[in-house]
């Protein structure tokens, strides 16, 4: 029986908010609050940088200003950069990849999943528009020129595969605002006529249905996702700290403010005092704040499998900085006990 995926055509309008939507549906999927999801959307002209990409080296900022192009950053393991505009169709797959392996021959970790999802796009385009597009792990190509590209991020078996298909994209702007040397094309250039984006939406949906044996159920986003989008926008996507510098706050699950307390094992009197203080200060914030007490040397599964650990926690462990309080991935207090007021202020500032 075909699996049922959620189809979202949800659009916020603000380019930075759109990428918060993708992260929200991914978090929702990986915490089990939503089924596998495909989101298809259009957005105004933007350059998208992957997490490791460089604003300085990969983007022509002057030309972005001149052409009214926004700069946004998306979570990604690869340093890719791409451009999209209202002539592009953007997509985001937020899925559990363990179900995909049945469709893959000669499985190669990571690459096979990318190739399979790109093949879904290629199948859709080929069928609907009679082109000969080919997919590999890096994208979809027509006549060896890229027509669809993506950024990917993983959380254990969960994958957020987000990208853009160049339907009627203005490639001359693309080449002005990025420093990319990619060979690109659009569906319009290959076919010789403007393509209504709605037709491509149907093609992509059919491509996924055929390739992965799924049925789509068109829905809207959930209330929890809506809340998370607002929070992600506020603490991450609207900020230059993320979009320009690539520094993001650490949030677990559905975006609760995360207070990680790193202590000795067994906790010393000072460690116990610190744990009690954190619990006391956050007693009325239980819906907004998640406390994680990590004890040195007890391994990463202290809070169950698939742990979410901030990079700073690894740093403090390596440098024996304890006890320590890390709030949303930033080391706020170490080796001393803060006052109740200072701790409360630090937590509320990022909530």
């Amino acid at each position, binding site marked *: 029986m075909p699996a049922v995926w959620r189809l979202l055509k949800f659009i916020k309008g603000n380019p930075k908010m759109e990428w918060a939507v993708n992260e929200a549906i991914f978090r929702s999927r990986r915490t089990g609050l939503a089924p596998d999801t495909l989101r298809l959307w259009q957005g105004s002209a933007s350059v998208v940088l992957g997490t490791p990409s460089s604003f300085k080296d990969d983007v022509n900022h002057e030309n972005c200003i001149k052409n009214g192009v926004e700069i946004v950053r998306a979570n990604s393991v690869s340093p890719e950069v791409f451009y999209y505009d209202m002539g592009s169709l953007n997509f985001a797959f937020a899925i559990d990849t363990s179900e995909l392996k049945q469709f893959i021959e000669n499985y190669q970790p990571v690459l096979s999943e990318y190739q399979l999802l790109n093949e879904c796009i290629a199948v859709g385009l080929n069928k609907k528009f009679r082109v000969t597009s080919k997919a590999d792990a890096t994208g979809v190509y027509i006549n060896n020129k890229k027509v669809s590209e993506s950024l990917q991020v993983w959380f254990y078996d969960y994958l957020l595969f987000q990208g853009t298909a160049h339907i009627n994209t203005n490639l001359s702007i693309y080449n002005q605002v990025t420093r990319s040397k990619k060979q690109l094309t659009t569906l319009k250039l290959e076919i010789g006529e403007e393509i209504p984006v709605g037709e491509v939406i149907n093609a992509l949906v059919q491509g996924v249905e055929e390739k992965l044996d799924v049925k789509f159920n068109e829905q809207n986003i959930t209330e929890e996702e809506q809340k998370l989008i607002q929070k992600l926008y506020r603490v991450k996507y609207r900020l230059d700290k993320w979009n320009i510098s690539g520094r993001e706050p650490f949030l677990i699950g559905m975006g609760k403010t995360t207070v990680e307390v790193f202590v*000795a*094992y*067994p906790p*010393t*009197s*000072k*460690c116990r005092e610190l744990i009690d203080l954190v619990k006391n200060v956050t007693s009325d914030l239980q819906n907004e704040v998640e406390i994680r007490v990590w*004890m*040195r*040397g*007890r391994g990463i599964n202290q809070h169950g499998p698939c742990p979410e650990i901030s990079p700073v926690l690894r740093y403090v462990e390596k*440098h*024996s900085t*304890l*006890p320590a309080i890390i709030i949303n991935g930033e080391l706020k207090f170490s080796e001393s006990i803060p006052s109740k007021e200072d701790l409360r202020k630090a937590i509320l500032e990022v909530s």
Partner: protein
Amino acid sequence: MEEPFYCIICDKPMQPKREIAVCSFCGKKEVSDYVCPDGHYVCEDCRTASLEEIVKKVCVATRETDPVKIAILLMKHPAIQMYGPEHHYLVSNVLLAALRNLGKFNIDKSSFEEAIKRGKRMPLGSCGLLGTCGAAVGVGITISIAKKATWTSDKERSLAMQATSEALCRIAEIEGPRCCKASTFAAIETAAKFFEQEFGIKIPSLTDPKPCYFRNLNTECLGNRCPYYR
């Protein structure tokens, strides 16, 4: 009910107990909070100690003459991870502690500091990247400090290099991927043989590290390929 704390030395559940207890790492006496049924207690300073601090504190304080025993105790400390360059100076420190406790050579507190300083010059992954393991170099550092060797020395310089080279051969025989615990044991065992052979110093009752205490904690354990597995 809260999960009990388990003793980091013997894994037994600890009991809350307020009494004067002796730290199993540094020997300090203080009022305890949790003590295990075998009497193991870790003082508050040792629980929060950094890598260098714990290695130095234990080696300065111990009266133990078996370097394997000191190494195992140290490697159970939560600051010392499964792999890491701290093993590079751990080897020289436990060997120096054992030699001092046997009344050999002129080893004082500054010897341990010097051994840490030298051992830290061996970076993470030096075995695969530089072709020399920091644990083996730790044996050379021990000889160098004990015999006060420098690059201008004659026999002492040769002995330090010879000791490193013998330990390195032994570690290379174990094959990979690396296991810092196995390399530590191999380096100490080679050093013990070297001391006897070159200086006539016999370490009485050197602990056999088999079966390795860390085998179930190491996700990349070599299993039966490792001489210390079981």
